[in-house]
């Protein structure tokens, strides 16, 4: 009997829908020196949804976001945003980086920082005008920070800083929002504000992909999830993939069995 014919690799199934998915990743591999941070990740983010990227420390979650934005060099992989290469789709992507990556002593007010979200639209060498500042203040209002527009950012609490970052991303008026641990170290009011904003974005037709650190709240806030541990473990609707088996595979050894069971039950 003859062995089955091997099909050319391109014929591997990729459904038509995934072609224009907000985020479509194939074979993404990132390594720092010889240590792999992300290995052979295939993932499609569904439209109009809130997607959580979860996994233990060092799982490659932040690396994935940074690789998509081409902030980190990539060993291999194809990344498409709404069917186009990232370079051409930048205007449709907004980014909320980790709060720790910034020097908060910088001479800028909350309004100045939010206005930076408009810089892409203003373009090279053109000045920031009055109506840009008014728009920035409007975005601050959406996150409940209108009263702090003129406060220097270092004088804000962690949660308030996070909201300013969120307002800056809102100013970009994007279709795909990439957020890196927006809920880390924020107070309850800020957490509620961020969730509200995310749900409004989804209602307006955007997709939010969010690195999330708190397993207890994944089921409450998100409808889809990607579980990572350098290699992808599972991806899909939260209710389906937040199983004991998947969590064990991803977190095995780092979480007690009782914790895993409790989390699986929240899905």
């Amino acid at each position, binding site marked *: 009997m003859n062995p089955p014919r091997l099909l050319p690799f391109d014929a591997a199934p990729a459904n038509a829908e995934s072609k224009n998915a907000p985020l479509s990743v194939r074979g993404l591999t990132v390594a720092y020196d010889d240590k792999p941070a992300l290995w052979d990740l295939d993932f499609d983010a569904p439209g109009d949804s809130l997607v959580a990227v979860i996994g233990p420390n060092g799982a490659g979650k932040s690396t994935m976001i*940074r690789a998509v*934005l*081409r*902030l980190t060099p990539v060993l291999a992989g194809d990344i498409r945003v709404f069917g186009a290469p990232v*370079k051409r789709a*930048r*205007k449709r*992507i907004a*980014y909320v*980086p980790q709060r720790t*990556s*910034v*020097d908060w002593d*910088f*001479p*800028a*007010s909350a309004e*100045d*920082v939010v206005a*930076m*979200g408009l*810089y*892409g639209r*203003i373009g*090279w*060498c053109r*000045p*920031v005008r009055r109506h840009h500042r008014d728009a920035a203040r409007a975005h601050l209002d959406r996150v409940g920070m209108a009263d702090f527009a003129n406060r*220097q950012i270092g004088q804000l*609490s962690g949660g308030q800083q996070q909201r300013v970052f969120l307002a*800056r991303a809102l100013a*970009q008026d994007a279709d795909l929002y990439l957020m890196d641990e927006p809920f880390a170290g924020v*107070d*309850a*009011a800020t957490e509620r504000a961020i969730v509200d904003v995310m749900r409004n974005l989804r209602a307006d037709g955007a997709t939010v992909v969010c690195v999330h650190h708190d397993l207890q709240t994944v089921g409450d806030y998100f409808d889809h999830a990607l579980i990572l541990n350098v290699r992808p473990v599972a991806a899909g609707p939260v209710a389906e993939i937040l199983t004991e088996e998947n969590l064990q595979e991803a977190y095995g050894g780092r979480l007690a069995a009782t914790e895993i069971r409790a989390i699986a039950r929240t899905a």
Partner: protein
Amino acid sequence: MTSEAFAVLTFGAGYNTSVVLAGVIALGIGGGVIGVFSFLRKRALISDAISHATLPGIALAFLAGVALGGTGRNLALLMAGAALTGAIGILAVQWIRDRTRLAEDAAIGTVLSVFFGFGIVLLSHIQTLQAAGQAGLNSFLLGSTAALTAGEAQLIAGASVAAIAIALIFMKEFGAVAFDEGFAAAQGWRVARIDLIMLALLLAIVAIGLKTVGLILIIALVIIPPAAARFWTDRLGRMVALSGAFGGLSGWIGGSISALFPDMPAGAVIVLAAAAIFTASLLFAPRRGVIAWSLHRLRLRLRAAETRALLAMADGYQAPDALARRLAGWRGYTDAHGQMTVRGAAAAAGAAHQQRLWRAYRQRHPDAALSFNPLSGRRIEDALSADIVAALERDSA
């Protein structure tokens, strides 16, 4: 003496002196404005590598000028040579930082020393050629305004103004990249390109300022004014304006002193003027200056101690620590034996009341309560509306 000084300061001491002064002021403003961006980008020290790397370029330009039949002292030619090797120095630092395991400070130190050493060797070679030419080149190390012609001063002023204009055009790009490089890159900005523009402007200031301030000290014009300006404001635009003003002021004072005493090295005098402005800012700036900050901290410590004392007294105890006890004595809350006075009893009751109100506020409006500062000295009743206070009184009863 004083009439002479007045004449120089007010541009009344003759055309040459005034134009030279104007040039130095323009250079100072330029250093201040452009320096803000390298300061915020935390790459100010690279201007040290740039300035030291210009020395071989100056020497080579001189040799070229002599070979072409001139005296070799044409300022434009020397500036061009300086800019050329300065640019090579920048690229060398970037290359070492990107391709090897060395961090930028090691790269800067390496490039700085190698280029400067090479330049010194060339200078001493020139010395063997013609003694007169060497003396002119030495002024590039520490700067001098004495030998500056009006034409050269105009060149310096014009180039400075051009550099300032370019820096202002790119102000938002520089600010975005200095504040959050990752976000700017994600937005699509070419961070490397913007950094290169900033470095080119730094190089321009160094080349422009070589003759007046000298290459050893030009870095000061790019670091001290922004550092001084930072004490006065939290807004980028104002910081740029203030830094330019401080730089211009240093140029004005230092340049004038240099005109009155031509033997003093101009660079050092200008830098000392800048240092005086910096020291004054460090000490006397409101809020961020050392004196204001120390007073503020002291006020907070005393207020905290007073609250500690009163809350302890409200519970029937003496104040817990020596400072609190002493403060209670000073304020008349306790008598000579450490016992509560009538005044102290009233104050203690008041402090306990504030504490209860604050606790109720934190429970009822946890988010808003974050903005209320109990150490500010303000009473809650004054900070909130009457109906909220009434509700809190009911809660804490």
